[in-house]
Structures are given as structure tokens and as C-alpha cells.
């Protein structure tokens, strides 16, 4: 019955925005077929929407200032207590086999790529695939020796490192390791959530001066990677996690690192 009502401005907007109730949609579509002026109006609105999204969506990828990430924390100023990392229950035999298999596949690709240029996100994804699937030895030094680990990695890489606290995002530090990297050594911090989902942060210092960059995304063999450059350091956050979630975690990483940086530069 409502489908016989005359077409209103509201209907035109709702139709163009894809928000018209199902019952009314067909009658508006029919009216558009009969009326080229109306059809052009709908097309213009849709074009306008697309232009607006193209203009405003890139803002979403900008790194967030750490003040905002801090303000998203519950009031009271205290950080949630860092939970002690416990040995995960031993994976089933099947997972173990798959894990080792994936690890070796990753290793094979690294060898094949020897001598050919590998992009930073690819390097990060391969490193993640190699170690995150290792049930027993994903890291060299466990999180219970975090301070020692960070000192050691900082010394080996010859610049001060910091393992960001991702507890607010549900991830706790498993530990870290030194990795050979494609051109120079890098540090890998691994994290795990309650579902045993692992993500890892690869950090390396670039020799040449590189300017800052926005977050960029790459998908390498099913591993999502957000990577960016800040203060001549390259960072890559990798995991088999959906893109939006990985981006949210990358923002927290960025904020945590900026906070650590600010704290370190205070006299």
C-alpha cells in the first residue's frame, strides 16, 4: 500500500543512500526508469557520496596522537596490570605438524628469495609465518625476562627499543628474538591473545634517513601487515587478523612507541 504513495524528496535520498525499506524500493526503482531527470538526480547523489568518501576516508588511516589513545583508556590513569605470560597448553599433534609445515614453507621462500629484493612487509610476513607457528620456541627470550630481552635487543641493534604494551587490545607479550632480516638485523616482538592468536612486531633501523610515512597495508600469503616508518625506524605489525582489527592494534603500537619516546627524551 505504501508503495503507491507519490515519490518524496526523502524517498529519493533514502533510495540513493541505500536506506529505503525493501517494500518501497521497487516502486522507486520503477519511477526512476520512467523519469530520466529523477534517475540523474539519484546518480548525482551517489556520485557526491563517492566523492565525499574519497575525500574523507584517507583521514582514517592517519596515525593517532598518543593523547587520544591514552584518553580511550579507562579513567584513573593506571595501566591494566600486565598479566604474566604462561606457557600455552601444548598444541595438538595436528596443529604441531601444520605449524612446522608452515614454518618450513616460510623458510623455503626466504631461501628462494635470497639475492632478490624483498619488500619490508613481505619480510615481516615471512618472519611472522616462520616464528608465530612455532609452538615451543616462537621467541628466544620470554616475556618474564622482558627488561633483559629489550636491553639485549637494543644492544644488538644499536638503538633503544621498546616493547609496546598491547594489553588494552587483548594481547600480551610472549617475548622477543633477533632476526637476520633482509638487509640488516631486526627485532621481533611477539604477542598472543586469549585465543592463542599471535601477532608480531618487527622493528629495524634504517641507515639512510627516511621520512615518516602513514600506515600502509599489505597482505602477504594470508598474513596481514601494517607497516610504517617513524624516526628512521621501520615498523611492521603482522598477523592473521582482520584488517580493521590489525589497524586498531597498529595505532596502539604507534601511540605506545610515541609515549616511550617522549618519556625517554625527558631529561
Amino acid at each position, binding site marked *: 500500500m505504501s508503495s503507491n504513495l507519490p515519490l518524496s*524528496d*526523502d524517498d529519493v*535520498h*533514502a533510495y540513493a*543512500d541505500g*536506506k529505503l525499506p525493501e517494500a518501497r524500493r521497487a516502486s522507486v526503482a520503477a519511477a526512476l526508469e520512467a523519469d530520466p531527470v529523477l534517475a540523474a538526480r539519484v546518480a*548525482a*547523489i551517489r*556520485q*557526491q*557520496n*563517492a*566523492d*565525499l*568518501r*574519497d*575525500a*574523507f*576516508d*584517507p*583521514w*582514517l*588511516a*592517519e596515525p*593517532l*596522537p598518543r*593523547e*587520544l*589513545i591514552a*584518553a*580511550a*583508556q*579507562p*579513567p584513573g590513569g593506571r595501566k591494566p596490570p600486565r598479566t604474566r605470560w604462561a606457557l600455552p597448553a601444548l598444541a595438538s599433534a595436528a596443529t604441531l605438524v601444520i605449524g612446522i609445515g608452515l614454518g618450513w614453507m616460510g623458510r623455503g621462500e626466504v631461501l628462494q628469495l635470497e639475492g632478490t629484493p624483498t619488500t619490508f612487509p613481505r619480510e615481516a610476513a615471512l618472519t611472522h609465518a616462520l616464528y608465530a607457528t612455532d609452538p615451543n620456541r616462537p621467541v628466544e627470550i620470554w616475556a618474564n625476562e622482558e627488561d633483559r630481552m629489550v636491553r639485549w635487543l637494543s644492544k644488538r641493534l644499536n638503538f633503544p627499543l621498546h616493547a609496546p604494551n598491547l594489553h*588494552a*587490545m*587483548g594481547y600480551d607479550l610472549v617475548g622477543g628474538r633477533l632476526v637476520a632480516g633482509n638487509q640488516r638485523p631486526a627485532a621481533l616482538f611477539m604477542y598472543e591473545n586469549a585465543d592463542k592468536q599471535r601477532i608480531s612486531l618487527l622493528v629495524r633501523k634504517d641507515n639512510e634517513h627516511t621520512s615518516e610515512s*602513514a600506515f600502509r597495508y599489505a597482505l602477504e600469503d594470508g598474513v596481514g601487515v601494517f607497516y610504517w616508518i617513524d624516526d628512521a625506524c621501520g615498523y611492521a605489525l603482522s598477523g592473521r587478523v582482520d584488517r*580493521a*582489527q590489525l589497524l*586498531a592494534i597498529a*595505532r*596502539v603500537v604507534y601511540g605506545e612507541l610515541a609515549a616511550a619516546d617522549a618519556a625517554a627524551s625527558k631529561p
Partner: protein
Amino acid sequence: MSDSLPHPDLVAALPRLRRYARVLTGDLNRADDLVQDTLARAWEKRRLWQPGSDLRAWLFTIMHNVHVNQFAVRRRELAESSLDADDGPVAGWEIPVRATQSDRVELAEVFAQIARLPVEQREVLILAAVEELRYEEIARVQCVPIGTVMSRLNRAREKLRRMAEVSPAPLKVIK
């Protein structure tokens, strides 16, 4: 009722909150202040949030109210004069570094046109076209009847269309 807000969702909503704040204020510093005030208010009122409901729409509502209260004095002026961006995009609306030259021109054009809209219309347009909120949710955010939302949307789109007609570089799809 809940005793807490979901952290990860709150952090995930930050970029959108910040974008909305930039659309409201037209200034990056004021936008970040507005986001901070909104988050503080959200934590104060956390018991009013219904778990499972759209956290983003709830945060937009809080932000709208915080903005209205904070800028009550200058709001009339803002609403009438818009951001007055005849000289180009407003301060907080910078164009991504990676955009190509022709994209930059077109983006600058879109920003300038949006900035010329009164704040209420700008708000409705962004919430409807970019955030894709339902019209009922936009009415709740602005605390106005849905008819007001529709007429604001209609006027905003008409103005944009007319601006595009007189603009030297007509809008096209920016890739």
C-alpha cells in the same frame, strides 16, 4: 547497563571520532581536544551505554552534545558563517601527502565546498554519506526530529550540487 566500555572497540572508533570532530570544528587541534573531552564524557556516562548497541553512534551523540555545549556561544556564528573556507581547505583538513597533483586539486575542491556548508548540514551529510548512519541514528545524534535531518540533508546536497556547477574544476571520481 555496563560497568565498562569495550576498549578495543573504543580505540577502533577513534579514527572516526577524530574525523567527525574535524568536520565539526574544521581545526585539527580543536578536533583533538573535542575527541578527548568526548572520551572523558563517555567514560563518565559509561553506564548509559547498552552493550551490543552501536558504540560509534553513541560516541557521535556524545561528541555532538559536547561540541554544542562547548561552542554554545560561538555556535550561532559558526552555523551562519560556516567555516568560511574561500581561501581553500580549512586548517585541519590537510590533503594526504601521497595524493597526486590532480587529486590534490579535486580534494581541495571537495573540502572547500563542504567547509562552506553550515555545521548542521555538514554534520548530517558526513554522517549519512560517509559514516552511512541510519537517518534515525542521525536524528538521535543531533537530537532533532527525523524530518529536520531529511531537510538538512536535502539542503546540503543541493548546495553542494550548485557549488559543483559553478566550480571551475568539476567534481569527478577521485581514485
